[in-house]
């Protein structure tokens, strides 16, 4: 029995769903960012699996995964800076308490 594409797709669907649960259910903003990281990783596994199984002669899947790496790094840097800035002003990192934009 060999590994087929379906194994990787199911794996990354499960990882994406777990990440979505983390984003929706967690209170702490840093934990929400961790959920986003899980979702981005699931997307990357999908991209690389499609590259390996469907178009191994084109490199597009891997090249796009590199872009996702760069965007993920940018997202984490800005997100953590925002969290630290909010923590300084409001002394909280709970996403429910961050409602300065509310009227």
């Amino acid at each position, binding site marked *: 029995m060999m590994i087929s594409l379906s*194994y990787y797709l199911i794996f990354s*669907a499960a990882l994406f769903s777990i990440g979505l*649960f983390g984003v929706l*259910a967690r209170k702490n903003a840093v934990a929400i960012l961790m959920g986003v990281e899980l979702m981005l990783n699931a997307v990357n596994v999908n991209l690389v699996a499609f590259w390996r199984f469907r178009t*191994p002669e084109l490199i597009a899947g891997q090249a796009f995964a590199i872009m996702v790496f760069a965007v*993920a*790094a940018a997202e984490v840097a800005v997100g953590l800076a925002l969290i630290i800035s909010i923590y300084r002003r409001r002394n909280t990192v709970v996403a429910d308490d961050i409602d300065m934009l509310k009227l």
Partner: protein
Amino acid sequence: MTPLLVIFIITAAVTLGAALMVVTVRNLVHAALWLVVTLFGVAVMYVLLNAGFLAVAQVVIYIGAIAILMIFAIMLTRHVAIDTGPQVNANWIWAAVLSLALFAALSWTLASWSGFSTALPEMSPRADPLRQLGTALVSPDLYVIPFEVASVLLLAALIGAIMVAWERR
């Protein structure tokens, strides 16, 4: 059962279990350490998929930089992080239902696709994905523009992060 399949199953189980711990464990520092385990499992997945460069980049960028940055942020906001009480909000049951529904919908949609169980194609022995990736990222008719735009985005994001986190006196 080929050895590769055994490795895949073990890696998938460890990765998904660690991911579950990331989203459920109460202590945030432990969550960050479980996140490291998850990211490492994904790196093993890249190795299984013949994407060696991505596996190394995963270890260096995700585990070496992003996870460590997370741990720094948790420690800088520490006394609220060890706050007692539940770490999930009141709607967590709906979040769980929605996630399970998404997983079911994704699996069902994928299973009805004809290419779902594509077998692993042979890599030609002369193929060199690393060299191919390197030239693709810098050749003008492939991905040099997205590559440069990504680097400008990263630079802008890092400068923005410094500005946002700057403590004005």
